């Protein structure tokens, strides 16, 4: 294994790509009793169409998430969740737009827990009966998230920003779509994506990197299959919507504003530049934030971030406001003078703040493994961030802001009260 040393942030990493194609990253944490492992699969809701055994498939929406739920069940009638419980480990899983990840944290028997993780993710067991049972559970999950205004405002925003693109589809699917999923659908998707060459195993803890690798080779095998063939077009198929409104019982309207552009940077640098740039333009020390806050147009829930998906950049600004439209206008007006935002002193301030925030992330095993797994699936290493921060210039930030706010298409999603509180 290759040892990478990141002196400035006091981290080390053992990295390798196994003969079966699996990327392994082990971040040693000597002296900690906690250990954490995440097996991330490059498969999410954006992989709506793909090739499997030479055929093009477009399964029902929400299938990646459904598959995540179903992986826990085992052929012997047991469930991986209960196997973990015997050691007191805390397991979970999630599905995002691009990734399905299975993970656990534990304070003893790391080796045994790792085996359980690798074993259940590589043992699909779907029957008509257990698929039917899961439909009931996921319907309740859909009911739960649909009652959350923050979820609704985000889902609407993505749908409005990316009409006709899988980026605009809900990760969880709909009651109708999940009820058309069968065991055959699940097997096809599993075969196409659940291949070691399309996975990353990220581990943090006081554990032996060699043991991690040998467990992964023993359980996942040594055969290396090709990476899945995706049908990659994520761009919107028509003009983005300007405004989308939904009504719920909310005491104060909730909004999300999205700017959609093509990426002009890539990888880690794009992530860092967008964080610094958004901090300068909209962060809690910026002129714009101060003015919006003092006018009572936003409160402390206001935040901005960028989602970067395979060449598409979605910059999102969200919060609560009695007048979301006025917030959008204020941002639009400020965007006309975007070059005034980027001064040297303010750049230094935002860079320091963001560097601190990235460094803090490495304190959490969960964040560390998730960010590293995400990064490797995109083709880079998160731990190199200190060097990349040093290379970012004011020109990078100006270019980003100009590209997003002066040229990007803007969508406003609002959740308003039924009584009409806007």
């Amino acid at each position: 294994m290759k040892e990478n040393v990141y002196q400035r942030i006091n981290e080390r990493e053992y990295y390798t790509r196994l003969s079966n194609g699996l990327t392994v990253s082990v971040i040693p944490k000597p002296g900690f009793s906690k250990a954490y492992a995440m097996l991330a699969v490059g498969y999410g809701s954006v992989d709506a169409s793909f090739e499997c055994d030479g055929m093009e498939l477009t399964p029902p929406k929400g299938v990646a998430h459904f598959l995540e739920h179903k992986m826990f069940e085992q052929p012997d009638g047991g469930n991986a969740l209960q196997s973990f419980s015997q050691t007191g480990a805390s397991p979970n899983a999630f599905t995002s737009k691009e990734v399905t990840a299975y993970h656990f944290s534990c304070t003893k028997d790391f080796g045994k827990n790792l085996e359980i993780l690798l074993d259940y993710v590589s043992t699909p067991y779907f029957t008509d009966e257990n698929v039917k049972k899961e439909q009931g559970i996921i319907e309740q999950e859909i009911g739960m998230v649909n009652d959350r205004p923050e979820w609704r405002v985000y889902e609407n925003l993505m749908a409005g920003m990316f009409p006709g693109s899988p980026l605009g589809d809900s990760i969880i699917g709909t009651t109708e779509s999940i009820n058309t999923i069968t065991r055959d659908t699940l097997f096809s998707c599993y075969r196409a994506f659940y291949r070691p060459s399309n996975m990353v195993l990220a581990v943090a803890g006081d554990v032996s990197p060699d043991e991690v690798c040998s467990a992964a080779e023993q359980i996942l095998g040594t055969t290396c299959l090709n990476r899945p063939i995706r049908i990659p077009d994520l761009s919107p198929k028509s003009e983005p919507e300007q405004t989308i409104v939904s009504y719920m019982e909310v005491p104060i309207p909730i909004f999300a504003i999205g700017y959609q552009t093509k990426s002009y940077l890539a990888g880690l640098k794009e992530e860092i530049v967008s964080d610094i740039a958004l901090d300068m333009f909209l962060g809690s020390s910026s002129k714009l934030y101060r003015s919006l806050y003092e006018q009572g147009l936003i409160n402390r829930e206001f935040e901005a971030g960028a989602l970067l998906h395979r060449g598409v950049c979605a910059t999102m600004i969200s919060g609560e406001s009695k007048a979301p439209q006025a917030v959008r206008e204020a941002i639009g007006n400020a965007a006309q003078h975007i070059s005034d935002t980027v001064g040297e002193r303010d750049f230094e301030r935002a860079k320091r703040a963001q560097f601190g925030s990235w460094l803090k992330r490495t304190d959490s095993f969960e964040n560390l493994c998730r960010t590293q797994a995400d990064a490797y699936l995109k083709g880079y290493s998160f731990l190199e961030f200190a060097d990349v921060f040093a290379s970012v210039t004011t020109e990078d930030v100006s270019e980003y802001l100009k590209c997003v706010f002066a040229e990007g298409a803007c969508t406003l999603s609002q959740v308003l009260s039924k009584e009409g509180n806007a």
Partner: protein
Amino acid sequence: MKTMECEILPGIFLRAVQTRRFKTSSLAVAFLSPLEQKTASVHALLPFLLRRGCRKLPDLASINYELDYLYGASAEPLVQKQGDVQYLGFYCSGIDDSYLSPEKPMLSSLLELVHDLLLEPVLENGCFSADYVSGEKENLVSAILSEKNEKLSYAYQRAIAQMFPNQAFGVSALGDAKTARQSTAQSAFSAYQKLLKTAPLTVTYCGSMPFETVAETVKTVFSDFSREVFYNADCSKPMFITEQKECYDVMDVSQTVLFVGLKAPENEVVMKVLSAVLGGGTASKLFLNVRERASLCYYTGSVYQPRQNTLCMYAGVEEANVSVACEKMLCEFQNCVDGNITEAELEQAKQVLVNQLKTTQDTAGALLSYWLERAVGGDVKTPSELAEAICDVTREQVVGAAHACEVKLIYRLCGKEAVSDERECLPTHQ
């Protein structure tokens, strides 16, 4: 990992955990005050108001700018409750000095900032700024009303309120919107002055500095703030409703949140194990039976609160299935009372708790929260000591605790179409 505590100055209590495990040090500085319906909101307003500006950094932007320069350090308003005690202050975190070369130690910078925020607010004619009060009052009202957006935590809060009517235990940490709207610059300022005179200040620190250094820094920074008399912060005995009650709130929701509330005996360690057997994770009775076997819900579990002696079981279910879900939850509880707890269930529940506690020691934020919660209530077990005590709990003790529990409440947060005449619909809550 070393934990020490002492009274640094009259009414200023420090508890510090020295650990080199994290890149961040964290700090919570809070006044402790009795939680009361009539003062909860005006108290909750104070940290947000004080965060708007102090003499040296008179507005939000200048405070934020200073924190950004400290490598993205944070000083966020802290408003929370434990039982019937309200915490009011600031929660801070910053990169540990060993990773940076700051002009002065991060701990001093953060403590000085918190000192200034707490004790040197921006004043206009000897009172809080009317502009700041009006802005933050509006934000507080929004925050209180927005509690409804998180259905599970809102339903929990409402269920607790029903079990302790007209009592501090039932009051939310932020208070209620109606009282919040009545706050003025004058009422906020007099509440603030009373707090300065009577409320003990608790300082909780987790980071690489040795106890002596932290104690010395707190003493130096807060040397100008000392009081003779202060309130003795401790929880009182909770008084539950006498009769069992069934009630519901109506909201625009598609899924019902169901809570079964129980009065629990005073035995934190054993009750934690009972709660874990019942609904503490994926091997628990509720998860296996209500979710996995019956497919009735996506989430279900139980939550135990030692400082108010409550045990609550919950689930998110379709309204049509509420009765059957409720029966199944009560049946799982009855299984505990009847002693139907296998050795494997007991062992797994203990393992889940021990894992959580060990993990707490390895997570910066979780460790601070652990000690901050224990600033009241007299329980001074470290996470390791608590884990040891949990391992010693027997099946008989768990069954005994289940026997001593009493079902007090069945509560639903449900959609309009679910209205039923048999149970009590609660008046609109604002």
